[in-house]
């Protein structure tokens, strides 16, 4: 799936374990790796979170400033999500403008936050048509250990939940929390030779035929989905992934975001 080079022996090893119903690190197919989320790790940012999902390590910073609204939505704030796969995080990432993988990741994280209407954009309006809050969510991947998608999505929402609108600094009143209405959580499954597993490690991600990310909201409804990768999926596989993803999202939300 990626440019990563993997030995055939190692691939065979993962396959043979999978046939026995096992994973390299001893997890069940629907089990996540250990997750730690620390918030407010960057004082200069209005909101921030450091996420460790197994070996994957990233920092999300939220910067908020005032700006002019888009002409077609004069009374709504703006959210902009960016994610870069910088060469620091993996030997296969290269510098230069973001490529399709990074763009896809960023756009899916963005879609989860936007489409679940987790931020009340109308409350980000200061003066209609003139001044609104612009929320920049930047994901900085430090170490790629697989499943950047879910880690980035958790980090983005954790950072937003602790973020403050810096009204005092911009002279427009008192600092208030970012108006949140929902907490979307992304759960990514991979299909490897017909087997479905959640939260792929780097090696699992590399040999996977396809990934399916399902983003669900607090009421257990879907806010976004993205299939990525060249293997087709059957309806049964998709329905199965949707069902377990919604359950898993609930569990992650309760455990790590305390909601």
């Amino acid at each position, binding site marked *: 799936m990626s440019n990563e080079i993997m030995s055939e022996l190692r691939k065979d090893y993962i396959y043979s374990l999978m046939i026995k119903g096992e994973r390299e690190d001893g997890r069940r197919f629907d089990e996540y790796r250990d997750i730690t989320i620390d918030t407010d790790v960057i004082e200069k940012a209005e909101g921030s979170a450091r996420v460790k999902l197994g070996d994957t390590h990233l920092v999300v910073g939220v910067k908020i400033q005032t700006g002019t609204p888009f002409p077609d939505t004069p009374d709504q704030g703006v959210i902009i999500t960016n994610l870069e796969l910088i060469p620091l995080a993996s030997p296969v990432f290269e510098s230069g403008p973001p490529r*399709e993988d990074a763009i896809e990741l960023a756009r899916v994280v963005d879609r989860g936050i936007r489409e679940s209407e987790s931020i009340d954009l109308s409350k980000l309006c200061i003066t209609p048509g003139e001044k609104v809050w612009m929320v920049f969510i930047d994901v900085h991947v430090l170490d790629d250990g697989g499943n950047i998608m879910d880690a980035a999505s958790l980090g983005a929402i954790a950072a937003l939940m602790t973020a403050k609108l810096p009204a005092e600094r911009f002279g427009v009143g008192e600092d208030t929390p970012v108006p949140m209405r929902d907490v979307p959580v992304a759960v990514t499954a991979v299909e490897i030779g017909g087997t479905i597993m959640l939260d792929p490690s780097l090696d699992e991600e590399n040999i996977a035929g396809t990934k399916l990310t399902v983003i669900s909201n607090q009421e257990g*409804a879907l806010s976004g989905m993205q299939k990525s990768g060249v293997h087709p999926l059957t309806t049964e596989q998709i329905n199965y992934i949707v069902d377990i993803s919604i359950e898993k999202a609930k569990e992650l939300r309760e455990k790590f975001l305390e909601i």
Partner: protein
Amino acid sequence: MAKPEKLIENGIRLDGRKPDELRPIKIKVGVLNRADGSCYFEFGGNKVIAAVYGPREVHPRHMQKSTSAVVRYRYNMASFSVEERKRPGPDRRSIEVSKVSRESLEPVIFQEYFPRSAIDIFVEVLQADAGTRTAGINAASIALADAGIPMKSLVSACAVGKVDDTLVLDLNKDEDNYGQADMPIAMTPDGKITLLQMDGHLTREEFKEGLEMAKKGCLAIAELQRSALMEKYSTLIEGEVNE
């Protein structure tokens, strides 16, 4: 246009369709001379044209694969295709659309037949009216067949969405703008799903129902794609026989 009060009235949509009805489709196969295969596809107000070049040499060379062909897909919107002029050239949206569209077609192409070569697919959106990526995939699939690329099957695509709390097939522009969910899907005629994206709000049950609705839409499109190809290639053979 401002948000209409109702997008569905008495079970009929603003453009007169029933919830599970596709927009009119027009297909022309082999419309370009220089390309190895091409297709012009109209899907409601969408007008897209797809060209396939290859298998041909890979440039830049380092992109080539020693055991299979590389498939490249470029989705591009003409600056005049939308209400507000679009800045020409690729943006983040078109890069993502190109990626998922390519991945929707790769599983049906026998890439291993053409090591060290490239199969290039170019999709140009001349007019956009919601559902351009699905129109592009439908066109590209035909253009690949027209180019004589060995394929396991065709790929057909359409979207399902939710407007006024009702599931509808193949959203038009207003339904896309003011609807509650949009879910583009591509699949092969035997039911393998090769593209799945979704945004908006759908319950688990709505999703499952929507998936079935999209399947029916894709099958109907597959039939049209097949007959368009049959029409071009069966008449050719007849002409040769008559001489």
